[in-house]
């Protein structure tokens, strides 16, 4: 598949860029971050995104979707990342909607996907139980009872958890933490008895939750059994989420890069523009190369998700490893090249650095993806 944009994709990019130019309000982000309590999803912006059709992008037309793919969703995510515009696209459309689409029954799809697309329902995926990304480390148990199942455990880092109407929970019916069989995926409404949340605000203004499940009743038809072994579903949904997040990271990276190169051209010290110093020129040029490589691998990975070929996992891991490293580099160089102003809260570069740091660790950092890439290549 071509790595260049089609005419439709160029138009989508323009319209997403225009939206972000309008909605980009980094001061609102500062206010949001500094308000007491943990804020909910901004429903006003969300409903505008729904109106633009972005929630419908990756879903089949049968469920009310546009039948497009990640090549298109990635364009939107990248532009949102450019302006640090927060939305539940990742939690609700990519993770929650994605799992339903992959592993749900047709009843599940019929009930849930149109509501996701219409923006009426928010959801998230509750998977993580360890500090570092390790999705198979599942201690949360699902026990069979006479009247359905009981779910018990605690999940960390549930994206937009405080706003979610429903969770997909990764739980263990058999085996030990780390095993790739014995896993189940269960739908759990957020208002179920025994569900309790602690909401956290992250350094970049995202909200996540620790979600406790205490003997929560799970009915038989809340289990997602539509797509073979759960570990395979988890791999597939993380490939998607990883690449969608990489697109968002790419947007943030480009903003930092652009603002820093601009600064090198105007800031004067020692009677010269600091961009004329070779010590900075060479670092800027190397950074440029990393950004270009990042752009290319994101395009390839988005297309790989849509083609769903045998190399998708390797490409997705190569993509996230690269974007994690480039995000780290961009945060570091962005601040260092700005000098003192770069470490003030007033300057935007710090907001982008924090956004990159959160995304770097989410769904596995570069070390995680190096080893995942190695394993999937048989070594």
């Amino acid at each position, binding site marked *: 598949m071509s790595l260049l944009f089609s005419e439709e994709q160029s138009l989508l990019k323009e319209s997403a860029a225009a939206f972000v130019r309008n909605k980009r309000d980094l001061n609102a982000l500062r206010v949001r971050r500094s308000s007491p309590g943990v804020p909910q999803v901004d429903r006003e912006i969300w409903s505008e995104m729904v109106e633009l059709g972005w929630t419908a992008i990756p879903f089949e037309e049968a469920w009310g979707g546009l039948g497009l793919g990640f090549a298109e969703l990635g364009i939107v995510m990248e532009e949102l990342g450019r302006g640090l515009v927060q939305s539940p696209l990742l939690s609700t459309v990519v993770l929650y909607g994605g799992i339903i689409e992959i592993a749900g029954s047709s009843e599940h799809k019929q009930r849930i996907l149109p509501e996701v697309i219409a923006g009426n329902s928010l959801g998230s995926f509750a998977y993580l139980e360890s500090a570092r990304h390790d999705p198979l480390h599942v201690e949360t148990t699902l026990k069979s009872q006479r009247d359905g199942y009981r779910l018990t455990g605690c999940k960390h880092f549930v994206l937009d958890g405080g706003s979610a109407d429903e969770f997909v929970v990764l739980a263990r019916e058999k085996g030990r933490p780390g095993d790739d069989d014995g896993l189940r995926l269960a739908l759990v409404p957020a208002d179920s008895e025994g569900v309790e949340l602690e909401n956290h605000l992250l350094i970049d203004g995202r909200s996540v939750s620790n979600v406790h499940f205490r003997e929560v009743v799970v009915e038989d038809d809340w289990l997602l059994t539509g797509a073979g072994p759960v570990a395979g579903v988890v791999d597939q949904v993380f490939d998607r989420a990883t690449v969608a997040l990489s697109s968002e990271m790419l947007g943030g990276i480009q903003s930092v890069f652009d603002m820093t190169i601009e600064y090198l051209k105007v800031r004067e010290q020692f009677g010269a523009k600091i961009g004329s110093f070779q010590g900075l*020129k060479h670092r800027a040029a190397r950074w440029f*190369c990393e950004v*270009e490589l990042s752009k*290319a*691998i994101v395009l390839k990975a988005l297309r790989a998700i849509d083609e769903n070929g045998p190399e998708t996992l390797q490409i997705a891991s190569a993509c996230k490893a690269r974007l994690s490293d480039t995000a780290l580099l961009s945060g570091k160089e962005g601040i260092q090249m700005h000098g003192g102003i770069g470490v003030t809260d007033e300057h935007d570069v710090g907001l982008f650095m924090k956004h990159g740091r959160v995304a770097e660790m989410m769904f596995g950092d570069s070390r995680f993806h190096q080893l995942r890439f*190695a394993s999937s290549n*048989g070594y």
Partner: protein
Amino acid sequence: MTKEEFRVQVRTWLDDHCPPACRGKGSILPDIIWGGRQFTYAHPDVERWVKALVDKGWTVPSWPAAYGGAGLSAEEVQVLHEEMSAIGTYSPLFSYGMSMLGPALLEYATEEQKRTHLPKIASGEIRWCQGYSEPGAGSDLASLQCSAVRDGDDYIVTGQKIWTSTADKSDWIFCLVRTDTHAPKHEGISFLLIDMASPGVSTRPIELISGASPFCETFFDDVRVPVENRVHEENKGWTVAKALLQHERTMLSASNRRSKVSVPGRGLLEVARDSLRTPEGSLPDDTLRAEIAQVQMDRLCYETLHQKNTEAREAGHGMGPEGSMFKLYLSELNQRTSDLRQRLNGSDSLVWNGDGIDEKEIAITREWLYGKAATILGGTSEVQLNIIAKRVLGLPD
């Protein structure tokens, strides 16, 4: 003719003209045939195949037919490559004449110069080398001193060139010479084509840290060169030189087998499995696994970026100064790969000579050593970084 009609034509022609010995898995075709007067074919089938390609203009398919090409469009060239690789063959003729000088001549030479030199490049009859660097002019190429003084209808060339790859096997050399010693350094340079059989030209090979190498020193001792062998105007040679350097970077950016720039020999993983005694399954050292993965992922990223750029060029966007990025990144990536491979090979790769040691065993070591040149030749990494900073990012002087 539509693309598909052209494809059918190509297929039929290949069927008729490509000897079975030059196709597929057991192909006897060498990776590269550099040509030149010193070259002789080792096998009549290879000679037959190359002659057929030359007659058809398909060794340089995009060049005009009048100069030894076939005048194919970018799309047709693509089809030609697809059809050749479908039967496991290719055009083995490759030279600096084809990749660097030819494109520069097409842009800057006179009609007569084109008709004289291009067909002999296309057919592999004449092998060219590049006379750019001098002992005192490396990264600061424009400070070159090799002089050409006008004497009637000739220039008299005196001086020395260095890093003239394969000069000892070449027939002609394209040279940057100083024709005005008073002008600013970029404005006193001319571009000359010199027959190496001329009296006063001599070459000497250079031994590198890796052993024998293709690099040479070339000396000019009062060499007479007809003025008609000057390309473009006198003192305007830097314009030609810059265009040619871009072609050189494009050549150095192609990460495929034919270009000889990817790291040859046993793969990283193969070496790792041998030295860690792990013929299959997961390697026992997570740090090494991560290092191997990093190099492989970086190559995937690089190839993707290269593909994106190729597609953009085919869609009509020119290759600009970002060509420096490709040269920079690929040479460093290859260096990292050779370095890791030698380290994976462990103490075996520290042996240089001795009992029972054959060339094959020290190939990994030689490759690691030779790889040190990759980030220096064709413009050092630092020069490429300067170009990116200035011409891509627009940073001030």
